[in-house]
């Protein structure tokens, strides 16, 4: 390939990478939360001013080097130095600071207004434990998906019991670290129903990049219905295949790490699977949620998410795998 070929290729890839982040479920430019919406004009303002200042500096430098003497003489005048060297920076930076403080003020006002049930998200390696405040103040344990009601600021309490993670749902708002031993509270308000994506934004070990989840914003009524269903124990297996799946699941010790409420499975080491069939993804947004993915995860999870804490269960026959996958898929 020619040198120009390489350059073209580099530009193409670079542009694709940069522009690829401009839309989609994990993009800051597709704001669907109140905080993200407020941050957006601040971002464009700062970006615009930065561009203007850069252009100004380049222009003045060009004048200083290439322009005729009488132009250059202007640059050295006291008036010019005071105007562009003192007043302009003070004015621009003070303005931006004020603007930034106002946005922060709006955010913290929203934080104070966050009443009603919140959500606790605990960073694990490498998945999210999500605990909702239930209708009667009880804890509803779930995992790897965050559901939010539209139009109400929700306090998200961020914790970790291992290493530092960081919760970032770009469409909703800014990121906030999850630090072992303390609770950081992030308040978000979804403004329209829809599905976006959150990502761990602090390196937390080998599979850090594979620690994501979907954030589902729902109409308040839908959300209430969903939360009421989420309180319930798991649905009973509907047919013989799923019953066999449940038997295999319990007999092979899956309940040692995973909980399926309403069955002997009550482990707290791995994600709660009580309603796993109703989530939008498996393995922290690593796989689509379908029986085939359950099968793959059971037997090949160390390839799908290297070094994750679950051992591979390459001990089942084909029909046994189908039964377990059908059982888990049916846990809606």
């Amino acid at each position, binding site marked *: 390939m020619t040198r120009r070929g390489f350059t073209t290729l580099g530009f193409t890839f670079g542009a694709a990478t940069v522009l690829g982040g401009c839309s989609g479920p994990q993009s800051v430019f597709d704001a669907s939360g109140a905080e993200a919406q407020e941050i957006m004009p601040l971002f464009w303002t700062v970006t615009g001013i930065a561009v203007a200042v850069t252009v100004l500096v380049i222009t003045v430098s060009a004048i200083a080097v290439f322009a005729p003497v009488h132009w250059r003489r202007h640059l050295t005048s006291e008036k010019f130095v005071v105007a562009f060297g003192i007043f302009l920076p003070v004015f621009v930076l003070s303005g931006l600071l004020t603007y930034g403080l106002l946005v922060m003020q709006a955010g913290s006002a929203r934080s104070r207004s966050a009443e009603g049930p919140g959500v606790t998200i605990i960073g694990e390696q490498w998945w999210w434990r999500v605990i909702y405040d239930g209708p009667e103040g009880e804890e509803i344990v779930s995992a790897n998906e965050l559901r939010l009601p539209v139009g109400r600021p929700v306090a998200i309490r961020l914790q970790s019991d291992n290493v530092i993670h960081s919760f970032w749902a770009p469409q909703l708002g800014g990121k906030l670290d999850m630090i072992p031993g303390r609770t950081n509270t992030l308040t978000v308000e979804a403004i329209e129903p829809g599905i976006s994506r959150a990502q761990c934004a602090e390196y937390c070990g080998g599979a850090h990049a594979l620690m994501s989840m979907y954030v589902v914003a729902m109409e308040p009524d839908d959300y209430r219905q969903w939360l009421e269903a989420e309180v319930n*124990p798991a649905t009973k297996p509907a047919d013989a295949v799923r019953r066999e799946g449940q038997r295999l699941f319990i007999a092979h010790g899956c309940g040692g790490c995973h909980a399926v409420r309403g069955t*002997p499975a009550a482990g707290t080491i791995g994600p709660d699977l009580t309603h796993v069939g109703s989530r939008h993804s498996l393995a922290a947004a690593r796989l689509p949620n379908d029986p085939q993915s359950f099968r793959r995860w059971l037997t090949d999870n160390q390839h799908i998410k290297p070094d994750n804490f679950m051992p*591979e269960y390459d001990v089942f026959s084909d029909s046994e795998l189908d039964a377990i996958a059908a059982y888990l898929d049916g846990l809606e």
Partner: protein
Amino acid sequence: MAIFLPRRRAVALGAIMVIAGGLALGAVFVLSGAYNVAASVRHFDITNKLIKLTLRRSIDTHSAFVKVPDLQNADLVRLGARHFANGCQPCHAAPGSRQNPIVAGMYPSAPPLGVNADDWEQDELFWIVRHGLKFTGMPQWVGDGRDDEVWAVVAFLRELPGMSEQRYNELAGAAGSRSGFTLEVAGEELFAQCIACHGDDRTEPVSATVPSLDGQKQAYLRRALEEYALDMRQSGMMEPLAAALSREQIETLSERFARMSRRPLERTPAEKGRDSQRERGQHIAMKGIPRQSVPACASCHGQTSAATFPRLAGLSKAYLATQLRLYRQGTRGDSAYGQIMQSVARKLTDEQADDVATYLAGVSDLPSIEAPAPASTPR
């Protein structure tokens, strides 16, 4: 200076010619086939002495860093004797039996150890049994990472020189009643071979490190034998035996042990351990250690768990502790099942492994985990 050059050249040329000539002669010697490799033609005395010196020095040097554990355990001697009868006696003879003439025709022939095991220190015996010896027919230990088994053999070899036939037969038990590597026996005699080490519904295993099989799950026993036979589980004692078994024999034996009623559990106070230790072990067995990502033993090894997962309750502490150690050091874990247990065992500390082995050894059953009471009232 210049005057010395021709002489130096002459010396160099001479040296090169000598070396080249030597190489050529060597090549002729090797390639012509003149050397006789026959076992029937003995080495020259000097060659013999040189080989023996090399052997002694090599063993002495290589065993320098072997640490000898406490071998004062009568269990180990007995276990070593039973393996000796299976794996060593065919070549090395035993008290009261003469070396097989075929073996005596080997060159070098396997030394009758009843006479000269005394020639070696314990660390040297360990090294020889563990690694084998090149060009002698002495194989290396087939169970990778099973130094614990090798030491059982060493414990026995220490006592072997001058041992009476009666004492040997008593130590070797049923295993000593035959000769040959393979289990060319069937039915009751084959079963007796297993019981000689593993015990049955009345007798204990020959050593605490050997698992009792009475009432163990059949699917697990079948899997264990298959894994040994395929070198997916390491044991210098079990691998050669399992490899000699046919599919039908594995089926019969595993079924027979599975059907066997269980020997009542009897534990000495020492085996039972302290109360606090048992309690800690019980907690791990029933609740796990969630903050270390260790699930409860009972979730996979409880009474109603899958048939391919072994029952652990009532097995000896020495066996359980050894197996946990093998998992943790990566010796056990080649099979898909082993991988699962290895990932759990590796998260235990030494003390936790000891606690949980103590607890499991002291109970005859491990209940399965029951459905917990609902924390919240379903609406």
